[in-house]
């Protein structure tokens, strides 16, 4: 896929969205439940580095979100750029933004929502997505189309947040090649420091502690399992989210807590991410 052509498309999508309202935002790496209000648009531009003992890769992705209904949101995520991706780990670059080279469309359905009092919300969501265009292996083989399913439940308030979720991504085989199945679980705890509990329109900052556990099956290349692929990772780390009216910025990093990787794969040094968000 020629990513150069995707820059103007992503920019155009971000610019032509009609005036609408905005909704809350959540963690960087883990699954979350908030959906856009009906008729609302959002734009997320994310930059991520996955560093390992062999160097690592950079990736940039653009996500456009639209609220079909206050409990149903559609998103389209496009790759903007990727560097040194020959040995990219089989992992989603943040549960909501997909794998590095893929174009991904998703629906997020908030099927459960309770608002028991002022400033408090409990909710649960299901996510279904389809992706294509990703590559894998040192020779950048076509990973084929993939199905992504996930579920998440959580709590949001003026003081604390938490979300627990999990999902999986399954690729279709393409001529003897198949990206290994990926299953994952995420946990997020968030805290709004007292100094940032001032009322709107004062700036709103939150701190998160995020954890991601991933298991990937071995890739298959020319019908043979790739010994240097797949394995298990548990990563955790902090992130921070700042919100100013229609703008948001979030940054965070995950470090490995435990890794059991197949073959001679390098261990993870860290995953770092920076995202800029705008609600139209």
């Amino acid at each position, binding site marked *: 896929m020629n990513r150069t052509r995707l820059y103007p498309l992503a920019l155009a999508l971000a610019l032509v969205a009609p005036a609408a309202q905005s909704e809350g935002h959540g963690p960087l790496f883990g699954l979350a439940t908030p959906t856009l*209000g009906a008729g609302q648009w959002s734009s997320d531009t994310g930059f991520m580095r996955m560093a390992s003992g062999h160097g690592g890769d950079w990736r940039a992705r653009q996500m456009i979100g639209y609220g079909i209904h206050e409990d149903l949101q559609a998103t389209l995520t496009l790759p903007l750029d990727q560097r040194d991706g020959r040995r990219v780990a089989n992992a989603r670059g943040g549960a909501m933004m997909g794998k590095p080279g893929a174009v991904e469309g998703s629906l997020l359905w908030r099927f459960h929502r309770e608002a028991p009092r002022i400033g408090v919300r409990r909710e649960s969501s299901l996510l279904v997505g389809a992706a294509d265009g990703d590559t894998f292996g040192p020779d950048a083989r076509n990973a084929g189309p993939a199905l992504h399913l996930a579920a998440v439940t959580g709590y949001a308030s003026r003081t604390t947040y938490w979300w627990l979720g999990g999902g999986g991504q399954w690729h279709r085989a393409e001529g003897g090649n198949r990206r290994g199945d990926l299953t994952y679980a995420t946990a997020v705890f968030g805290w709004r420091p007292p100094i940032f509990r001032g009322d709107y329109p004062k700036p709103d900052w939150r701190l998160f502690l995020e954890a991601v556990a991933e298991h990937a099956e071995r890739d298959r290349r020319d019908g043979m399992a790739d010994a240097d692929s797949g394995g298990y990772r548990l990563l955790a780390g902090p992130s921070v989210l700042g919100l100013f009216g229609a703008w948001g910025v979030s940054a965070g990093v995950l470090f490995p807590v435990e890794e059991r990787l197949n073959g001679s794969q390098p261990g993870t040094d860290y995953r770092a991410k920076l995202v800029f968000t705008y609600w139209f």
Partner: protein
Amino acid sequence: MKTTLYAVLLIAAMSGSTSVHAEGLVHARQVIFGMDCAPCAYGMEKGLKALPGVRSVTVSLNDGYAEVHLAPDSATTLADIREVVRRGGFTPKNATITLQGRLRLSPRSSLSTASGDFALNLGALSESSAALQGRRVQVSGSVAADAAELIVERIEPVASP
């Protein structure tokens, strides 16, 4: 002389036909459950400001409400405000509102406005309101979360234009 008189009468007639008086919702303080963050409030503020006739909107996250002041003869109703809250993904609860319109006491108490009739529960004010039958009044009170009836706490006559 006659030309001047005609001009004065014409100006007087035009002034009468274009005078604006408030009839409908003039103020609402809608309690909202579920708003936790700045973009929630920002979106609510934008959505409410987009309603016809809205002059100002104040949103509070910590106290959980949106306060709306409306221009005279605004077509916006409390139902419109609550729909904006729902479409934002939040839950509208009780509201405190102020309405202006003509008081009707039979067959049941209601306020007749440009946007339609609004059911009133006058309670202890029923007796003192009898003298205001058919007159333009301003009523203030509360409306429960899933109700459309205004529990009146205050009623006073409004001078006609």
